[in-house]
């Protein structure tokens, strides 16, 4: 089985081939290795490789996986539409970085903006976050109104190249 996972700013490719008896051939970003895996209660796996034995503790919310190895925690997001996501970023979509309330919209469709200019303000957890223009451009559309509640990862502003 092949899967792609967003790990911070990068996408990681994993392939898992079951070999029977709890043995798996795993390839991560082209590097193959053997893993012996055993299910434990409470969504834990005992993983044994040529080098070490570790317990991995797994939790999930939607497409997000939380994995704890020893005392270290990692967060990985399942990429189902990696290509589309990249495409959208190129098209200039600006997403809400977190769920929150849009408190101020400082630009309108058609406005020319310069890199770093605040476009709108989002308030969450009692803190205000400014969403700024990542580059010079022109506002194509705005998909949020002041006072509106938005989820994380929702496109809020579409930016196009300066006319």
């Amino acid at each position: 089985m092949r899967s792609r996972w967003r790990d911070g700013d990068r996408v990681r490719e994993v392939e898992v081939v079951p070999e029977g008896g709890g043995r798996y051939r795993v390839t991560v970003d082209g590097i193959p290795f053997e893993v012996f895996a055993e299910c434990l209660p409470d969504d834990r796996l005992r993983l044994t490789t040529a080098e070490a034995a570790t317990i991995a503790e797994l939790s999930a919310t939607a497409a997000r996986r939380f994995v704890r190895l020893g005392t270290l925690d990692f967060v990985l997001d399942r990429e189902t539409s990696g290509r589309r996501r990249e495409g959208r970023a190129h098209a200039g979509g600006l997403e809400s970085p977190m769920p929150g309330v849009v408190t101020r919209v400082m630009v309108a469709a058609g406005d020319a903006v310069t890199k770093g200019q605040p476009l709108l303000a989002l308030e969450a957890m009692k803190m205000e976050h400014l969403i700024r223009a990542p580059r010079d451009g022109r506002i194509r559309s705005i998909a949020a109104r002041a006072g509106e509640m938005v989820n994380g990862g929702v496109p809020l502003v579409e930016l196009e190249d300066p006319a």
Partner: protein
Amino acid sequence: MFQKVLIANRGEIACRIARTLRSMGVRSVAVCSEADRGALHARVADEARVIGPAEPRASYLNIEALIRAAKTSGAEAIHPGYGFLAENAAFAAAVEAAGLVFIGPTPDQVRAMGDKRAARAIAVEAGVPVVPGAEGRDAAALVTDAERLGFPVIVKAALGGGGKGMRIVEDRGALAEALESATRLAQSAFGDGAIYLEKRLERARHVEVQVAGDGHGRAVHLFERECSLQRRHQKVVEESPSAAVDEPLRERLTAAAVALAGSVRYRGLGTVEFLLAPDGGFYFLEMNTRLQVEHPVTEGVTGLDLVGWQLEIAAAGRLPSVPGRITRRGHAIEARVYAEDAARNFLPQAGRAVRVRWPEGPEMRVDTGIASGDDVPVHYDPILAKVIAVGPTRAEALERLARALDESVVHGLVTNLPFLRALVRAPAVQRGEVDTEWIEREFLAGFAAVATAPAPELALAAVAIGELLGVPKPPAPRAGARRPSVFATLGRWRHPGLA
């Protein structure tokens, strides 16, 4: 003592207050917004009332709804916790006008200390040194004052405090614009555009003194706390005693704090905050007229229950009797667990905490507002819990805290646990050589580089093999108020030697 007390707050502090009420045989009434139905603080109280929509203004900041909930539930007193209405004089006055007891200072004391300029004047009157500064509404005069003080200066909102509404100005050129924007911001955030200037003290530490007053002029101190480890002017790790305070300095600091509290006949628990300059000079910053987030470190070294003190002062009008002198022993240190991504500009996080596990042990205490399966809504302060360790020495307490943070698990949303684990192991923190800007100046970039490094191959193998095996099982629907023994999730708190 009261029969029944309403807790006008949420999260970890509401749970913390409920625990002392229970230990004193006082019934507790929790309030919650619609977003907090079934939240841990509502489950641990004896009864819970929904007071309004998620929006704080309509619920936790809704004075009328809170007083109505207290009246209809038969509570005689209201504990405000910290944040929300804890330092709102109108709320304190409304509680008293309704014939209820406000567990805190008098409305006048809340008002006086809430206006940071008035508080500075009270400190000067009591002979307590204040940070050199200036006030006045005339912008031209303030520019002259700033030049006299010397740049950089800090522009602060008179009704701000706690790092809110402050702005550092590096040179004269930026001052006019800063004064104007600070006035505008203060007007919109605090309903009063009054501002003042303070000289910015470089490499200063934040040291504060816990005080308690009986309301008749008698005041005592419960030693100091060091809170220099801050990000964005908000504390993340606090401890007692301070590594920077020796006995002669401790005597001067605590005497100044007691003089200030005594001079206003302070009632209840309060905290007098100071900046400690590298040359050993200390300056009054502000007084917080409430229970402090970091009060557990004082409890850790004194063995006292500070919420119990608040209740006794409010109910009996006197300080609790302590056999002999109030003493301290060992060292206590606390780390605040926040729902925020420290590697990405401390972006707040919300979601469901699907897996929550806290460390257990005799020298460990966890004050939490969440258990496994609880939601963390977007509307409120992102604090989730506080992990506190005690030990005979600072080094041992710090080592225990490091291990406690390793053992703490919150899955379902990104937290600052990785940041805290790295922070308490940083050599400068181990040596105690930090100031209020040290995290941003010397720690953050290195941490972010490590935190954004690729996950190990084994982490990816684990999630991918998990997908094949159906691990983790799909998240179960939220069960609401269901667990029989929520106190089992609250962790233990015990003082070494008092157990």
